């Protein structure tokens, strides 16, 4: 078959059974996959809607400002142009979210103002000519879509006389005369990536056309408006006149997204604390990117439904008949099921345990009930988290703790007894009446479905107390520091400090009682709400908290993988010959002839400085891997191939600094 370049490999068919086979018939891992995909789609659809709504809400103010600016710019009559109206859109360093933002902006501008919008980025504009070509192409394609007649006219003009070159803005002028847009908005998405000279040329050209074409420029800026202005040279800044628009900071958006998706009260599948923490940390440390956030969320949802058989139970109104018996078997293997069975046995309910293990029907009823109650418990947890945020806001507590961190702590079961909760509760005790009123009203705003504290009663009591309050000072509780005073008494040359409560007025006493009551009730509420959700029965179904697929997909370590493979090939080869003789750990240190040649060379490479003498390297290699005297040519071949492989991997580079030397390019562990 050597003469063929490629062929289809057909393995020889044998009737014998293969020596080693996997069981493929019995345990079908793809069972009910279609149903699970369906559930995933429904669940994710809701989440995606939320994400979209949050994003649009976050951008709304900025978008409106830009649109107002654009529509205001048209009212100045452009017969006597002074400068091009310019919007500097500071969109932040998350470059990947610029694209969707400018698309939304374009849609809005086209909908709400009578203008044409062209979005251009650096990729399709390497010089002025291509920039203009692209601009005109975008404009013309729009016309073609509108009416077909224009197409022929432009093409045929070459036979009738001079034809406009395809980068002549005359095309745009023609188009503008027909379309009658009030203004032509040209958005440059990534202004940083443009060459500064090109930007200046574009601006100067647009300025000279401004008496014929009503341009409005929008620049997307990732760094700052000042650095953008500094890049423009010559007269270009004079030709521009405009405003700066700040897009919402991405950490704020992420926070909003988090509360809308993960910490929301009505989601069926929750992302566990470890994974959420990891996602948030990645956002803070590495990338600030809204798309990435929603991608990682989506991936988590997919992993849950695709790989977890019992996730079937998250389906709305599920019936026993729909389910195969396998799924019950899978559920019986869950750790939380085992825990529950053990607990039940401890409390002597062996009969029920027997029933759970034997009857699928009974188990099904149990599961449905517990999924339902587990959902409620989790949403109560989210509500409690929101309550804490509201309380802290209303009491104007100094340390701003975002909902995300509160939720993560609550979901990992660390909230009860944490200093944060204690501090919050203490400051409720100390709150004067005006703060308490604010707190009550802010809690009333909360559409908490399940909030057991009767706010209306407190509100009524507070109003009653306040009614006969003639002074403007608010009522103070007995724990308020302003009611304490310190007394010093000198007894036998010793200073005694003693705290005294100032005498409380009748109304203050009544108020203290009210606050105390409120505090106690809230305290019991938090105690019931903040449980450890991972201890819940069926928490594996309700919560997804595996970090390994997430890190592998979103945070791979390519360089580390190569370095590890080269430095300790045993990890990958798993053969008996290399290393591992003296108990595992030292395999790293041992160099042996049985290792692949590239790995040996790599180890020698690591030991050398930035310039490597190739001849020394060869003698070292020969001493290690060379077998007999006469097999030198074979060893040399191995050596050369290893060197070539290192060079191919970009680790080694020929050097001109010293003869017979090669330069080391990459160090390990960076």
């Amino acid at each position, binding site marked *: 078959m050597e003469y063929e370049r490629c062929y289809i490999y057909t393995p020889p068919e044998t009737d014998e059974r293969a020596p080693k086979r996997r069981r493929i018939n019995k345990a079908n891992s793809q069972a009910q996959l279609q149903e699970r995909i369906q559930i995933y789609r429904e669940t994710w659809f809701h989440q995606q809607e939320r994400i979209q709504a949050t994003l649009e809400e976050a951008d709304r103010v900025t978008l409106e400002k830009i649109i107002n600016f654009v529509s205001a710019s048209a009212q100045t009559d452009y017969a006597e142009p002074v400068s091009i109206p310019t919007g500097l859109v500071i969109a932040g360093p998350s470059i990947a979210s610029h694209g969707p933002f400018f698309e939304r902006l374009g849609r809005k501008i086209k909908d709400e103002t009578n203008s044409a919008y062209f979005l251009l980025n650096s990729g399709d504009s390497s010089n002025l000519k291509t920039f*203009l070509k692209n601009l005109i192409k975008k404009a013309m394609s729009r016309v073609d879509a509108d009416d077909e007649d224009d197409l022929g006219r432009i093409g045929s003009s070459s036979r009738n006389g001079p034809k406009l070159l395809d980068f002549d803005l005359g095309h745009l002028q023609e188009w503008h005369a027909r379309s009658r847009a009030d203004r032509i908005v040209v958005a440059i998405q990534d202004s940083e990536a443009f060459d500064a000279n090109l930007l200046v040329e574009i601006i100067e050209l647009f300025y000279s056309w401004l008496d014929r074409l009503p341009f409005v420029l929008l620049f997307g800026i990732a760094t700052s408006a000042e650095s953008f202005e500094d890049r423009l040279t010559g007269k270009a800044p004079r030709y521009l006149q405009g405003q700066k628009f700040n897009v919402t900071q991405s950490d704020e958006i992420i926070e909003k997204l988090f509360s809308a998706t993960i910490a929301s009260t009505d989601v069926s599948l929750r992302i566990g604390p470890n994974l959420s923490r990891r996602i948030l940390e990645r956002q803070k440390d590495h990338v600030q990117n809204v798309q990435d956030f929603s991608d990682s969320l989506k991936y988590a949802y997919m992993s849950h439904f695709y790989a977890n058989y019992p996730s079937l139970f998250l389906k709305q109104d599920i019936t026993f008949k729909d389910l195969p018996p396998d799924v019950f078997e899978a559920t019986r293997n869950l750790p939380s099921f085992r825990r529950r069975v053990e607990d039940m046995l401890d409390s002597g309910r062996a009969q029920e345990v027997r029933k759970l293990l034997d009857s699928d029907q009974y188990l099904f009823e149990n599961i449905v009930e517990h999924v339902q109650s587990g959902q409620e418990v989790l949403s109560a947890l989210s509500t409690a988290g929101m309550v804490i945020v509201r309380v802290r806001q209303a009491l104007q507590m100094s340390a701003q703790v975002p909902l995300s961190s509160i939720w993560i702590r609550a979901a990992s079961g660390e909230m009860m007894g944490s200093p944060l909760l204690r501090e919050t509760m203490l400051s409720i005790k100390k709150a004067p009446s005006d703060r308490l009123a604010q707190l009550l009203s802010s809690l009333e705003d909360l559409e908490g479905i399940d909030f057991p504290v009767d706010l209306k009663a407190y509100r009524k009591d507070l109003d009653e107390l306040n009614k006969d309050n003639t002074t403007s000072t608010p009522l103070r509780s007995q724990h308020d520091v302003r009611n304490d005073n310190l007394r010093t008494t000198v007894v036998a040359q010793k200073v005694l400090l003693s705290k005294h409560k100032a005498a409380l007025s009748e109304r203050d006493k009544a108020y203290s009682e009210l606050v105390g009551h409120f505090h106690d009730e809230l305290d019991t509420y938090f105690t019931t709400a903040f449980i450890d959700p991972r201890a819940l029965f069926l928490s594996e179904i309700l919560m997804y908290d595996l970090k390994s697929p997430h890190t592998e997909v979103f945070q791979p370590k390519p360089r580390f993988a190569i370095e590890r493979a080269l430095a300790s090939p045993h990890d990958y080869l798993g053969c008996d010959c290399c290393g591992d003789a003296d108990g595992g750990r030292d395999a790293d240190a041992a160099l042996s002839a049985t290792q692949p040649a590239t790995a040996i060379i790599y180890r020698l490479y690591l030991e050398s400085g930035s310039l490597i003498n190739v001849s020394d390297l060869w003698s070292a290699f020969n001493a290690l891997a060379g077998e007999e005297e006469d097999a030198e040519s074979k060893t040399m071949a191995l050596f050369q191939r290893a060197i070539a492989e290192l060079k191919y991997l970009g680790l080694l580079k020929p050097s001109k600094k010293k003869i017979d030397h090669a330069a080391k390019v990459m160090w390990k562990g960076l």
Partner: protein
Amino acid sequence: MLPDEILTQLDKQYPCREFQIQQLASLYFSNLPSPPLLIAHGLTATGKTSIIKSLLALSTIPHTIINLQECITGRHLLERTVSSVLDALDEYNDERIDRRPYSRTENLSVLANHLQKILEGHKKFVLVFDGIDKQREAPYTFLPGLARFSELIPALSLILITTLPISLELRKPGTPHLPFPPYSRSSLLTILSQNPPKIFLTQPSEEQYPDYTPDLAAEDDAWLWGRFLGAVYDSLSKHTGRDLVSFRNTSLRLWRDFVAPVVDGTFGTRDFSRLMVNRRHIFQGEEAVLDRIISSQNAENESAQTHSTAIIKKKRDVGMQHDLPYYSKYLLISAYLASYNPSRTDSTYFMKHTDRRKNKRKVNTNAGATKSKHRRIARHLLTPSPFPLDRVLAIFRGLIDGPVPQLADIYTQIATLTSMRLLVRVGGVGGDALEAGARWRVNFGWEWVRGLGRGVGIEVGEYLVGGVDV
């Protein structure tokens, strides 16, 4: 319109340019043949283009003006010339010339050929090339070729507008030049005082000041504006930008600030000297002479604050800037250090297991202190030197406490910073952006990186070889 009327009208429109207008009129309005080629040259904002444009528009000569800045390539220029000449003749004769023979104009000789054919039988046609020195990718033969057009086409008379005289490039002696010298101080004042801006944006109410009529207000405006212009010219524009446009922009930017005490009633409209003393600070700053995209007036309208709080606001604005991710900041700081520190000092600054840092640094500062023969320039004032990628990563790991996993995210960040032009690849364009052999340079300054470092709790100056004395 009679030539004399045109002249008076133009003189009124463009004061202090009587000489040039006269010359142009005598060259192109008379029945005598016009010069085949004229070079009008002068610095920016001296009225070259506007005067020629208005003069030709008022005349009855067929003409067309081509702005070379709008021509992207040489071919574009040629095509454009032919079609605009055709357009101009169509309009002038009110008929349509058959354009089919002129569909392609590949080079200069074809242009000459076309023009010859088009202008056959016409008496005079003026073709103006505006900004001939701004032409992109102009071939060497372009100017000499143009200069000799008139030998082939007798009806054509060319006007080339340029910033500097170009007699040498034309390779043709004896071309008439018409200079447009920069305006002198008195001319600038005359021109700008023609349209004084208003002191009061809204006329003071009639009930309160019944005798302050609009006429009186206009008189005050003109008086104060004239004085003010003189002051602006002597204090700022004389040294920064003497041309008409810069001067006008500067004056307009300062005007509202200048008359603010008049508007709020502190001073009368004619208290010029007291106003000067009171508002002297606006003549001291550089804000007014810089061209900014976001005008300071806009910003002030938004905030409506006094001078001192405006500075605070500015500071807050800087803080409002979008925050980079945590590790990106460290990467930028490491890149800055890699650019400005010589690589041999790295081991003394960033090795974790030796503590020779202090001693070594002392040596360095001593070397700077001993006054050597030539003064050393502080490192951070020099251009950054390129560095390989691994050095940044090594410094990055040296700066950060605790281990950082070797994630792909680090590379993503480097790529992002590159597309934001904060890091720039030097040489070796093309290929993989993260190739190990590539060399990099930072594209930001000391001030910025210092702020960045303070944001994450690193005093960058401590790690910079030679130290920084700011």
